[in-house]
């Protein structure tokens, strides 16, 4: 338990180790730790930012989905309107076509009937003339009896 020069040597040793620490240990360790702290802070900030962006994106997406849905509804609406329009149109067209065809057929029929009637009337006139001449045994002049014959035909 003597006080001796160990005192001084220990003091020197201490100063040297402190100098080592100050020069070679503390700065690189502190630098690494500070850099890591910064990187972690940046990472956290980035994740916060990303979260916010995600939130915003979600809102946009929701809005877009809603718009799309509305639009789809509109389109369906329009389509069904168009559908009924086309149907109506087709119905109308069909009806008018039918009417047209019916009237054309009726006209044809009427025409054919008139023709037949005319033919019949003509043949009836000649038959009448023929009959009358047979009965009278004499030539009936068609021209002289035109008035009479016409009256007969009209009566038939």
């Amino acid at each position, binding site marked *: 338990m003597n006080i*001796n020069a160990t005192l001084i040597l220990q003091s020197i040793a201490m100063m040297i180790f402190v100098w080592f620490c100050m020069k070679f240990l503390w700065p690189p360790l502190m630098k690494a*730790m500070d850099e*890591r702290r910064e990187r972690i802070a940046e990472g956290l900030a980035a994740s916060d930012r990303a979260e916010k962006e995600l939130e915003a994106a979600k809102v946009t997406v929701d809005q877009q989905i809603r718009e799309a849905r509305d639009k789809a509804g509109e389109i369906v609406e329009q389509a069904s309107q168009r559908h009924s329009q086309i149907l109506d149109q087709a119905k109308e067209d069909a009806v008018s076509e039918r009417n047209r065809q019916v009237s054309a057929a009726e006209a044809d029929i009427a025409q054919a009937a008139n023709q037949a009637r005319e033919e019949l009337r003509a043949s009836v006139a000649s038959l009448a003339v023929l009959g009358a001449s047979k009965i009278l045994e004499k030539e009936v002049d068609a021209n002289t009896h035109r008035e009479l014959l016409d009256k007969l035909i009209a009566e038939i």
Partner: protein
Amino acid sequence: MAGGSENITQSEYIRHHLQNLTFGQHPDGSWGLAHSAEEAQAMGFWAFHVDTMFWAIFLGLIFYLLFRTVAKKANSGVPSRFQAAIEFIVEFVDNSVRESFHGTSKFIAPLALTLFVWIFFMNFMDLIPVDWLPWVAGQAGIHYQKVVPTTDVNATMGMAITVFVLILYFSIKIKGVGGFIAELTGQPFAANSTAGKIAFFLPNLLLETIALLAKPVSLGLRLFGNLYAGELIFILIALIFTAGSGFVAAGLSSVFGEHIPAWFWIVATAAIFATLWLNLKGKLNTKTTLWFLLAEMLLVGGIAFLGGQLMHFGWAVFHLLVITLQAFIFMMLTIVYLSMAHEHH
């Protein structure tokens, strides 16, 4: 167990353990190691303790290399476990400095880190069983070996005085010579008149000087006292149970001779390691392993109990707290003192 000399008395055993390996000038003018406490005493101030300096520098180098391996590879990426452990210590010291020291200094934090880890390592030597390293040294022909540098008052006071010089340096650097003298003479008794200032000059100087000097003395002696006392208790436990006339160990002497020899602990430790190793390698099933371990622990524990090893263990557990705490206190007080040196009062 003391360096191979078997027939020593208890007081010789204690004294032997408390004697440093001293290098200095003999009275006849030649330089060399002291061969007895008296010779060491006669060497006076200009001698030094080889063991203290060896272990202090050795442990300082361990501290440096340990931290240097991390510092070299340190990057801001994901740290390895070892790097994380080192950074934890650095962070802890850095926080302690930030809390107590409100200036900016590139010096105080590294100083605190060095003191904390270095003193912790030096204190830790106390947990190595008191006879092991001296026994090894004894085999190498060195007869005195005190392996805990902080149980040498020269080492602790050497560090405390360095801190004291730093206190003076920073006081004068920050406040100037005039400011520092004013601080030493202007308080605790303050006066506004010139006459009052002159009257209080001497009492103030006396009180403040005592307060100033008390800092390094308390700093150095606190560490020394704690570690010296701890070391002494280890020595006493070793003495009661295992050295020569131990009263419990006497029963074991028929088995082991005077005390439990080192080979017993080596064999016991090897046996336990071998058991665990075989289990890990899958050569021994868990049940058998447990039976083996139980038998080994009972054998070792029984002999350890009789040999006072459990008492050693108990004190070592408590001492683990003491050595950490003392290293922390030394660091903390250094920071506080230097912080005070930086502040104007």
